[in-house]
């Protein structure tokens, strides 16, 4: 069939986009869901608003404003990485993935849809958080074009670094309960990633741990985008370390993209009606 391959590729992409748009709308129009994704960063912003009045010494930027990019970075990791991991685990549990497997091109379209809807949600939450903060906090550089260009670039890089890892974790963990450990781990990671507390104030080994993971680098990248340049002095090495941001997040992306197809394929291969039935049984027993 001439043009068949093209037609089929287009079907996968279009079905994926259709799924992404439907699911994005479902989340974005549900107050409950939005609150469930936004309450942590919103609470963090509120606390910063009330306690972060003091200016960073020698600058016109408040401590609160300085913390905002880090909170946004944390939000990216939670919404994209954890969001995708939770979605994959839950969809495996309830049979959504099995349906995809039973459909021609279903798995690839499912993944396209899921990744795009989570990416869309992440961007949406960042925008939702950013709008009030520009009014509430002094010193954010939102009136220059370069800030927005950098913001978009860091955000894209952050998504590319975190979504594949989310897909890997979502494939490895077979139920939502065990994913709770990932949440705990991420919380601990946030604590050593200079989100609420400057990383330079931590012991050296903890600084190293923090710098191994994307949370810190996303925060740093977003600070470089949104804060005046003289605040770079407060960072490790006294600069924004732009290349390192690209390098570390890029490395996570490469690792993620190498692992994700292998792990996803393995997960997809194992999906079957009896696997879903067994998980349902397990869940019913836990509930009882």
């Amino acid at each position, binding site marked *: 069939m001439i043009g068949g391959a093209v037609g089929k590729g287009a079907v996968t992409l279009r079905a994926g986009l259709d799924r992404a748009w439907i699911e994005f709308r479902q989340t974005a129009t549900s107050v409950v869901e939005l609150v469930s994704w936004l309450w942590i960063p919103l609470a963090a912003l509120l606390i910063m608003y009330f306690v972060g009045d003091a200016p960073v010494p020698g600058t016109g930027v408040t401590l609160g404003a300085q913390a905002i990019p880090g909170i946004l970075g944390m939000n990216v990791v939670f919404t994209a990485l954890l969001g995708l991991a939770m979605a994959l685990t839950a969809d495996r549990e309830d*049979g959504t993935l099995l349906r995809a497997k*039973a*459909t021609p091109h279903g798995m690839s379209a499912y993944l396209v849809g899921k990744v795009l809807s989570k990416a869309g949600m992440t961007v949406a939450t960042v925008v939702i958080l950013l709008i009030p903060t520009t009014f509430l906090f002094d010193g954010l550089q939102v009136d220059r074009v370069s800030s927005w260009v950098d913001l978009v670039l860091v955000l894209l890089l952050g998504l590319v670094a975190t979504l594949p890892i989310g897909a890997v974790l979502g494939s490895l963990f077979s139920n939502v309960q065990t994913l709770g450990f990932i949440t705990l781990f991420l919380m601990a990671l946030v604590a050593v990633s200079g989100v609420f507390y400057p990383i330079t104030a931590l012991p050296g080994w903890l600084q190293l741990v923090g710098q191994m993971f994307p949370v810190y680098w996303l925060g740093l990248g977003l600070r470089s985008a949104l804060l005046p340049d003289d605040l770079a002095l407060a960072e490790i090495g006294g600069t924004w370390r732009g290349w390192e941001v690209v390098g570390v997040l890029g490395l996570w992306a490469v690792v993620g993209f190498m692992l994700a197809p292998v792990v996803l394929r393995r997960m997809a291969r194992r999906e079957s*009606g009896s696997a879903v039935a067994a998980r349902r049984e397990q869940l019913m027993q836990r509930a009882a």
Partner: protein
Amino acid sequence: MDGNDVPPPRADPADIGTAPIIEVHDLRMRYGTKDVLTGMHFTVRRGEVVALLGPNGAGKSTTIEILEGFRKRSAGRVEVLGVDPDHGDEAWRARLGIVLQSWRDHGRWRVRQLLAHFGRYYRPYGTPDRPRPFDVDDLIAMVGLTEQGGSRIGALSGGQRRRLDVAIGLVGRPDLLFLDEPTTGFDPEARQDFHHVVQRLTAADDMTVLLTTHDLHEAEKLADRILILAGGVVVADGSPAQLATRVSSKAEVRYSIDGRPEVRSVDDATAYVRELFERHGRAVGNLEIRRANLEDVYLTMVRNAVTGQGTGVPRELSGAKS
């Protein structure tokens, strides 16, 4: 049409009932050290509705998952629509319909929205004589969900959800439909309802159906042909009527001799009883003669399989494959 790589081999209506849609030869499946399937043979022909009947744990789901391409077999030859399911591509998958037991997936989607979405995937696989996908509104009407077309799937009743499952299985207008334990957990009314839907569908379209069930009545009601699965092999194969006559040619004779109870399964009850009286005369008591029905035999077989007495194949049914 030439140059089309998807056409199902369904040129001639005379093919119906002859062209093999599923061929299973010496299928074996082993989990660890446990043999679940120990050499299954069967064929399903185009247009047939075939029930795989057996007790829980007999390997029905394993079999159907192998045929669906969801599980790798240990050994044997399997062809579904002329293709080994382990190597089925997307075009092959597009010709299969699988009715999954849903639970709560896609709970926030709307009925029509979900069917339209799944229909998309099948569009490149339509042929002039078999347009794909099904028209969503026709499909919704066919399974009786017209009023729920705009409803959230999570808000459907159990029975309605099950009809939606069937609709999703059918949306690609499959050549072959798999139904795995379709009515587990149904109340009697929902079950009857579901049977009507399946009967209507299989009558309307040129579609081959393989269903699994542990319910004999369901198999009798829906299937043209029943395969009874026990001990990892097909022990009986025939239409419900054929199986019933084959079985009812035997009768069960219960009696006692000097108070000792005896049971015999015999071909000619009259001759047996005559001989019994000739030999034992007045010592015979509590005489009872009963024709076995399909259910008796099936239940005995299930019991034997559960207690591990060989394959539990009653003699009446072996040799059913001809």
